[in-house]
């Protein structure tokens, strides 16, 4: 390989030292300027695109290897589930209409459901603490930083970087992630923070006599204006009152299976200024 940039006459330790300084500079400037992150996402796109094709091939072989019997039994099970779900869906439709009418009467939250687009996950980076995915929609599709990302079950995370063709999504479980929520059926504002663990989130700073209990469902509160209100976030799976700790330790099981996301929904919330069409 040719020696690029550095003449070999300098001792290796000096060359390494210079590169370390250069790395510090690159790291610090990339933390300061979010645009560097967006540009690097653009550069990475071809590699990630190929890796998605690899994942797709993997999934297809996996499907192919599933036996016919397994598929048939799954089919029967899904049909039964569908039959059971049908009345519930109908009920939900009725309830939604009724809810819309009531909300219109109250003149609050006049949000019609926003626009969504389906995106494929093309790359992942799971490390203890950092849980990032890359999806294949970018600024060209109208994706923006801070956009809510949904998956089957509820909220999956939000967009942290965008390039023309792709976007990076920080999952709810990412250590830096925090989302405003409330218990379903109550208005107590709470936060749900990521712990770095894919199947456990936490509610920070709750006093030891917290009214929250195992089994409580948490939904987005809409505070902060980033996530629309009422989306599923998770269920409280443990409340631990530890003797000398000032706060209770609360574990939340995310509503979305964060480790196995293949497709996600990008959500464009309709602007709040736009009044809802009368039902």
């Amino acid at each position, binding site marked *: *390989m*040719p*020696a*690029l*940039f*550095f003449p*070999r006459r300098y001792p*290796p*330790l000096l*060359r*390494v030292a210079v*590169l*370390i300084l*250069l*790395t*510090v500079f*690159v*790291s610090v400037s*990339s*933390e300061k300027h979010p645009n*560097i*992150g967006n540009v*690097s*996402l653009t*550069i*990475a796109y071809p*590699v*990630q695109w*190929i*890796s*998605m094709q*690899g*994942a797709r091939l*993997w999934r297809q072989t996996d499907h192919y290897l599933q036996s016919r019997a397994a598929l048939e039994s799954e089919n029967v099970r899904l049909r039964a589930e569908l039959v059971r779900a049908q009345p519930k869906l109908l009920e939900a439709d009725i309830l939604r209409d009724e809810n819309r009418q009531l909300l219109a009467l109250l003149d609050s939250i006049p949000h019609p459901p926003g626009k969504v687009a389906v995106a494929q*996950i*093309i*790359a*992942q*980076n*799971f*490390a*203890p*603490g*950092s849980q*990032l*995915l*890359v999806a294949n929609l970018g600024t060209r599709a109208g994706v923006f930083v801070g956009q809510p990302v949904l998956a089957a079950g509820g909220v999956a995370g939000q967009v942290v*970087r965008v390039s023309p063709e792709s976007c*990076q999504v920080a999952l709810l479980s990412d*250590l*830096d992630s925090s989302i405003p929520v409330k218990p379903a059926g109550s208005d107590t504002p709470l936060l749900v923070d990521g712990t*770095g663990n*894919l199947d456990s989130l936490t509610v920070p700073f709750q006093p030891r006599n917290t009214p929250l209990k195992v089994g409580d469902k948490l939904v987005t509160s809409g505070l902060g204006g980033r996530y629309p209100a009422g989306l599923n976030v998770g269920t409280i799976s443990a409340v631990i009152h530890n003797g000398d700790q000032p706060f209770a330790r609360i574990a939340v099981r995310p509503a979305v299976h964060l*480790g*196995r996301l*293949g497709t996600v929904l990008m959500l464009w919330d309709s602007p709040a200024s736009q009044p809802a069409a009368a039902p």
Partner: protein
Amino acid sequence: MIVVVVVLGFFFALTAEAIPCGPFYALLHPDFVALLLLYWAISSASELSFTVVWLIGLLQDMVLGDVLGAQAIAGVVMIYLLYTGIARVRSLASWEQLFFIFVLLLAHRLLVWLWQVWAGTVTWHFSLLLGPLIGALLWPLFTLTLDYLRHALRLNHT
């Protein structure tokens, strides 16, 4: 020809790093780019350029989308450490190199981790040690495969 093969190899290693195959894969897969760097550093007669190693690491950072520079610096330091004892490592058979490879991969992983801790994006977990361990265990197979490929493609030593 050799340049094409090397570039293609790193390209596939990068895609294998980012391939979205779920949390188990993320936990267990070895750092393919680091393995490939070690392979070329040990088996090519001429010295790898630190700048090229750095740039490959930077590209890996971009693909993984974590803090920029973590893989870059870890790669450079790993190759530097390798070169301090390169004569001894080259004289060993590939299964005997296994221990050195483990130590180097571990150093690489810890450096990446330190850099990310500095940026405040990660926590410690013992599963971080699994990647280097599996990478080292795969090393003999890895070198055999690549040696065979090189022989089959009639790539001479460079």
